[in-house]
């Protein structure tokens, strides 16, 4: 009987740009939504790949190995923005203490929407408005919201990728969605 053969993959940095730059770029752009930042992340990934090429054991493909480096770069970026002071704050929608704890703050109570605006939900202008509203969110909220809602990733995968717990994720999604709802109400539906 033949022994199963194990494929040992090799690195070929000469072909990285041609073979993987678009793939890595696409992987990162949906997560960070910024061309320059994505470009930097791709560059850092290749540089880190070169520096640690001697540690490549050949157990995974070149592409998988480069993606794992890029994932770490994205987590580093996420941690950086998470700890950055002075970032946009999320506005509270509910009383945080007292006998009304957990109830809607009066000024944040949802209002009925204009029916005419409700009919125009497939327009490019509305999609642009959503982008504007997402940009008002703190970066980590925007990133988690995009990964879950726009990129439609699984909760487990986002948690693994960003090293957060599912309850963290749902708090972020909840705060992001309530803030976005208010932003769209003020700037689109009742504008």
């Amino acid at each position, binding site marked *: 009987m033949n022994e199963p053969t194990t494929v040992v993959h090799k690195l070929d*940095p000469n072909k*990285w*740009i041609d073979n993987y*730059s*678009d793939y890595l*770029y*696409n992987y990162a*752009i*949906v997560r960070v939504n910024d*061309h320059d930042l994505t*470009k930097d992340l*791709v*560059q850092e990934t*290749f*540089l880190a790949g*070169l520096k640690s090429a001697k540690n490549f054991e050949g157990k995974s493909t070149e592409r998988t190995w480069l993606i794992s480096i890029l994932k770490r770069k994205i987590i580093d970026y996420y941690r950086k923005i998470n700890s950055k002071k002075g970032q946009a704050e999320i506005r509270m*929608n*509910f009383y945080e203490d007292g006998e009304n*704890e*957990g*109830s*809607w703050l009066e000024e944040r*109570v*949802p209002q*009925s*929407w204009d029916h005419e605006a*409700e009919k125009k*939900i*497939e327009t490019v202008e*509305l*999609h642009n408005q*959503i982008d504007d509203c997402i940009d008002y969110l703190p970066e980590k909220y925007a990133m988690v919201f995009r990964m*879950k*809602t*726009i*990129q*439609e990733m699984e*909760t487990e995968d986002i948690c693994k990728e960003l090293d957060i717990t599912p309850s963290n994720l*749902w*708090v972020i*999604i*909840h705060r992001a*969605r*309530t803030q*976005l*709802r208010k932003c*769209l*109400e003020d700037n689109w539906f009742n504008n």
Partner: protein
Amino acid sequence: MFKKLEITCDEATTICDKNQYGEASLLDKIKLNNHFIRCKICVLYTKQNTMLTKIYKGKAKADQKYKATLCMSNEEKEKLRKELEKLRA
């Protein structure tokens, strides 16, 4: 028994948000519906939230199509190629 099912508006809207992704549990949904009996604001939030989910899905589709076409320019790739070559030399 019903006391255990009582939740605040903050909790109700959190469940509602989770439900938009099909990830609320059965108990969550029971609590949410119980909350709806006495809170019309959260009913309105849920109605609007469901509509927003539909809008976000449309945007997700459009974005995925658009972003699949994005990449670095040839000049940017060339610059990066030179950086890497410098590092390897």
